[in-house]
């Protein structure tokens, strides 16, 4: 249980700069998710927090104590690895007890701790088995048990669920969330699964190229992405990006959009002042698939609602919704419609666009226009 303060941390290997100034303030008990593509530096950042790698410059402070130079064992951090890293030569009991033995915990206390953790994770029947005799899900539990037994200040999870099959992954995700609600220990959790990120996090840090692009609540990151990268990374299917021009129409700035040979003027919400001033310029309109749907009566009357007629290229039924591909400004656009309303490929249907949720990016800097 501790807060974690990462202060301008840089990490370089020779001429390769992996981390380029990471700043994070993590409160006691927060569940932080680091997401980003492979090679963005999230695992390096974890290693720096754990002390497995030394930060080149910058400071890492745990519970108001500067641990930048401290050895991993003195930081009181437990980590769950992607490969679980269970000791193959020890049975489950010994795997969990190893860290406690080293810390010279009395024998009876070790026994009660191992049993408590085993009950918590429902692995008591497995205690005598070797890791090679466990299934993937069981190994994952043991790895968590090993971390839990130590009762550390901070938990680090390095893609702990990525080796599990889809069903088990969802189950374990829920369990981790329950566990966090119960233990209230600070957690830093790396994943590249953005559904995991959305469901688990108190706050998400989106990383790219060794820098944090955005650090905020899941809803903030989803609804108000600061740049094209964050917008494209979070959400599945990802946000549509459509290059288009800001034009004046009836004395107001509009987005000019061509759909199957017909021009439409889409409204720009009042709050997007900066975009409304860019008349004549090209911008990138970012709009999530769920904001382009079939026409829903009573909802299509708002000031920032627009509708277009589009010819369907492909449909992908997912059960709950049907993803429908159309073309706008000659670029493919995913729309999410109710399965009953979806038409067949080749047919034309009317789509309702909620421009209130639209986000605009500068095509040069790729940052959000504000």
């Amino acid at each position, binding site marked *: 249980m501790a807060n974690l303060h990462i202060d301008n941390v840089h990490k370089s290997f020779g001429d390769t700069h992996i981390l380029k100034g990471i700043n994070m303030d993590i409160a006691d008990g927060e569940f932080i998710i680091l997401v980003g593509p492979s090679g963005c530096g999230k695992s390096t950042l974890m290693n720096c927090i754990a002390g*497995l790698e030394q930060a080149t410059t910058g400071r890492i402070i745990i519970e108001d104590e500067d641990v930048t130079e401290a050895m991993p*064992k003195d930081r009181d951090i*437990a980590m769950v*690895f992607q*490969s679980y890293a269970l000791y193959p*030569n020890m049975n489950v009991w010994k795997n969990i007890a*190893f860290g406690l033995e*080293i810390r010279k915990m009395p024998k009876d206390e070790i026994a009660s701790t191992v049993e408590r953790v085993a009950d918590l994770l429902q692995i008591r029947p497995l205690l005598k088995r070797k890791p090679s005799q466990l299934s993937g899900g069981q190994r994952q539990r043991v790895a968590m048990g*090993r971390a839990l037994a130590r009762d550390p200040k901070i938990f680090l999870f390095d893609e702990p669920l990525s080796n599990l099959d889809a069903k088990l992954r969802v189950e374990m995700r829920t369990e981790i969330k329950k566990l966090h609600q119960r233990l209230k220990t600070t957690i830093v959790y790396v994943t590249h699964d953005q559904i995991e990120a959305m469901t688990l996090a108190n706050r998400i840090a989106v990383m790219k190229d060794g820098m944090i692009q955005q650090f905020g609540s899941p809803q903030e990151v989803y609804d108000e992405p600061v740049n094209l990268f964050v917008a494209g990374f979070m959400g599945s299917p990802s946000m549509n990006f459509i290059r288009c021009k800001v034009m004046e129409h009836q004395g107001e700035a509009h987005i000019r959009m061509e759909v199957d040979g017909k021009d439409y003027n889409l409204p720009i919400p009042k709050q997007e002042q900066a975009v409304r001033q860019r008349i004549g310029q090209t911008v990138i309109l970012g709009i999530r698939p769920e904001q382009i749907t079939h026409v829903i009566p009573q909802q299509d009357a708002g000031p920032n609602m627009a509708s277009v007629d589009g010819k369907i290229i492909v449909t992908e039924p997912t059960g709950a919704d049907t993803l429908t591909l159309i073309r706008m400004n000659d670029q493919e656009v995913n729309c999410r419609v109710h399965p009953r309303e979806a038409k067949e490929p080749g047919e034309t249907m009317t789509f309702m666009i909620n421009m209130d949720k639209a986000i605009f990016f500068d095509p040069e800097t790729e940052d959000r226009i504000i």
Partner: protein
Amino acid sequence: MTVKHSERRYSEVTGRAVLYAILIIVAIYYLIPLAIMISTSFRDMNDIRFGHLIDLPSSLSLEAWRMAWSEVQIGARRQLGLRPYFINSLLITIPAVTISVIVGALNGYVLSFWRFKGSNIFFALLLFGCFLPFQAILLPQATVLGKIGLSGTIPGLILTHVVYGVAFTTLFYRNYYVSLPGELVKAAQLDGAGFWRIFWRIILPLSTPITVVAVIWQFTQIWNDFLFGVAFSSPRSQPVTVGLNNMVNSSTGEVRYNVDMAGAIIAALPTLAVYIIAGKYFVRGLTAGSVKG
């Protein structure tokens, strides 16, 4: 259909038969010299003198074995037989194998999990040692042994074998350890274990298969070595390979084939034993699958 099916079945069986036939022939080809050695070592000299050179013993005689082990006069040495040489070989081989395997395991551990600046260059340079021919280091090593006062001694020979063998054992262990997940060491570090504890408690218990390989390799190399044994020894520290050579070459009068054969088998027995004992563990280590993370 049925005809074709059975044809294919027979062709498979024939293939097997041919394969086994070849294997058996090759095995016999390699085993015949050994069989002749064993058979000759149990014959007595009269039998050899008046019968064929290659023949089964008419009576089992252990005379030649006793002669080779403790009675034959080798060179001008006061102690008789191969026994003192055999003991020298044990005194050289056991410490040299132990030390070179331990040092190799430690080197491999450091080079795999505790990389330092220049560790790759260090490893590459070490690998040169594997390609160095024995002859190339004879003179320099003789100088070194002379300078540190170990020429002609058993510790001198141990040192030479350790230095030469560490290149190989390091290579074995390093290549084995890089296949172990590095996260094991990270996990142990976070659990609070240090350099030595990780080595003893985590890494070494996983090293059985490669340790068996390293021990077999080192034992065979050092036990069978002749060149270092003859170059860096004095009469008091000569290993069994040198003793055997001297025994065969220094006999006066007739060649006592039975004694020579018995001596050769005595000199080869320990390596055979190591293969038989350790080979079993080797296979067990490979099949246990305990290394899979």
